[in-house]
């Protein structure tokens, strides 16, 4: 074990430190040129007072088609506004802890706006609060955060509208309110805040308006398509008379549809839920799925960037009830929720018009 002690001998430590110091100094070297470029930028600013705004848009999980389509809308808004630099990054594994680390990084980097779709509101809340203390505008989009950790929430649609929309669509697909049927929900995680609020409203809608629908199970799929597939298969075995499945996340919906299709139940067992049209096109065309419920995701990303830019420029003030969102026109603000609007139902007739 000689070598492990030899490293700790004073002479070698000294030599190592010296080399480290020289390299560190050379690493710090470029500070002089970067200063000159900074002053150059200042001079430019005097000529053309065009403030640039940096917006960090953080999705729940990077790489999901749903969020990629949001990002395309966000990119469009950034280009339209001209003075917005958009950073789109999120955890590829959907880890809330990593999301919190990213928020901390962007806060340190000094971006102007951080827009988060939190995976787990409680885990990211301290990081969001810390960013707010640094004077950064922190907003939530797609899924709400802990209310005091963000200024605004860009809400795709009210939870009630989405939940009622899904139940109404299911009833319509099944053949009307008189049909007696067992249905089940395949959700993302049992702890997912978004999904749980929808489920609450879906239960209310079924109890109040469609007493003929019987909700037999709510199963998590852990945001994993294979697991959604398996869960749906198990449910079909456990409830042979089941007539409908709600896949209420963009991952559980295709999983559930695939299970119904492989069981040869296309057209007999209805599947509806939330997903991007591209991921469901095949199922809509072969008849497994009659309707897909969603909002316009590109518009959601667009609106988020518009709200972020307005906050950074100080044009969106507390207490306002409407917001001018560029090409989207006027949007309502309810309290601190900026509302995108109604749901969008994709069917065989209109699904080809959308590409995301």
């Amino acid at each position: 074990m000689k070598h492990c002690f030899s490293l700790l001998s004073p002479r070698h430590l000294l030599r190592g430190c010296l080399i480290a110091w020289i390299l560190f100094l050379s690493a710090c070297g470029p500070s002089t040129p970067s200063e000159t470029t900074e002053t150059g930028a200042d001079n430019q600013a005097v000529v053309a007072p065009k403030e640039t705004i940096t917006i960090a848009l953080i999705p729940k999980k990077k790489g999901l088609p749903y969020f990629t389509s949001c990002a395309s809308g966000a990119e469009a808004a950034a280009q339209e506004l001209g003075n917005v630099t958009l950073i789109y990054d999120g955890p590829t594994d959907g880890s809330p802890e990593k999301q919190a680390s990213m928020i901390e990084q962007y806060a340190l980097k000094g971006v102007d706006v951080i827009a988060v779709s939190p995976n787990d509101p409680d885990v990211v809340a301290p990081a969001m609060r810390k960013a707010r203390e640094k004077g950064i505008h922190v907003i939530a989009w797609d899924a709400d955060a802990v209310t005091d950790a963000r200024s605004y929430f860009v809400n795709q649609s009210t939870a009630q509208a989405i939940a009622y929309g899904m139940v109404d669509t299911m009833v319509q697909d099944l053949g009307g309110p008189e049909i007696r049927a067992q249905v089940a929900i395949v959700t993302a995680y049992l702890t997912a805040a978004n999904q749980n609020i929808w489920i609450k409203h879906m239960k209310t809608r079924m109890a109040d308006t469609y007493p003929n629908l019987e909700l037999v199970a709510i199963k998590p799929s852990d945001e994993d398509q294979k697991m959604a597939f398996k869960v749906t298969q198990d449910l079909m075995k456990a409830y042979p008379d089941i007539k409908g499945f709600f896949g209420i996340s963009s991952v559980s919906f295709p999983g559930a549809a695939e299970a119904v299709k492989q069981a040869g139940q296309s057209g007999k067992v209805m599947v509806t839920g939330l997903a991007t049209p591209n991921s469901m096109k095949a199922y809509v065309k072969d008849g497994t799925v009659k309707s897909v419920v969603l909002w316009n995701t590109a518009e959601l990303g667009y609106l988020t960037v518009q709200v972020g830019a307005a906050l950074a420029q100080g044009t969106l003030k507390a207490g306002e009830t409407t917001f001018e969102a560029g090409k989207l026109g006027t949007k309502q603000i309810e309290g601190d929720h900026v509302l995108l609007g109604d749901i969008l139902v994709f069917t065989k007739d209109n699904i080809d018009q959308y590409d995301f």
Partner: protein
Amino acid sequence: MDAFEEKTMKARLPSWLVTPESLLIGLSMAFWFIMGKLDHSFLQWEVQRELSTHIWETALMALPMTLIILTGGIDLSIGSIMSLSAVTAGLLHQAGWPMPMGCLAAMVVGMACGWLNGWFITRFKVHPLMITLASMAAFRGMAEGVSQARPLSGFPESFTRMGNDAWLGLPIAGWIFAGSLAMAVWIMHAHRLGRCIHAIGYNEQAARFSGLRVDRMLLGLYTLSGLSAAMAAILFMARRNTAKADIGAGVELGVITAVVMGGVSIFGGRGTLAGVCLGLFLIHETREFVSWHWSRDELNLLALGVLLILSVVFQQLLGHKRPS
């Protein structure tokens, strides 16, 4: 063994240059140089200090892991012990216990879990890989069961401050790590335990026949590992103000990666704490810099993989192979 190996490999290089540690120092400095060239703001002290909060928990758990791997063992259950300890403290806090008591209970739970691992390993002579693989699932299941997978949050501010405040320029978690490191260095270098750990790693049978109390030592090490996981859990709770059954999932991989990167032989017997610290530093800086500069999370795993392969290949080239 060393003298022989050093003769057979590059005899021209001075011996202090061909250690895994000096290789890692070289790599770190090269990385720092590149980082400074690409994005100077990353090297600011404030940035470095704030970002360091992401590594202390892993670092803390890497210390006992180093000792365990030196004995030829491994502990895969630390992530699950982390979640079980966190859930314990969280539930006790909800039940109205004061926070220090909850933390103490969490540490007791952590140590009990570690002790249980050690007991099974020494009593039934099963490879630690299998025992801790099993307990990884069992402890996680327990954590999910008792907490019903609910997030537990709303800890008092005096507690969360521990996760966010700095003392003399270093986050509190950093001081805890520094203290633990000092203890580990003392164990390894000043205490005879250090030599025993190496001896077990080289040849457990021989160590036993030489009259070393191998079982007692292993039991102690696994208990220590459980304690470090509990402490990491407390630091995590203070930092993120939440305890949930899924915290610490996959953390064992990060810890083991850092230890292996630090030049510790996965077969036991060879490696240093200095190397592990450098490994931790290099992994942390790379990970943070990649997301700082490129803002692309997908590059992170790639960078980590490349780094690991680089260091392993270099170490192999330098002739640091497993003693046969």
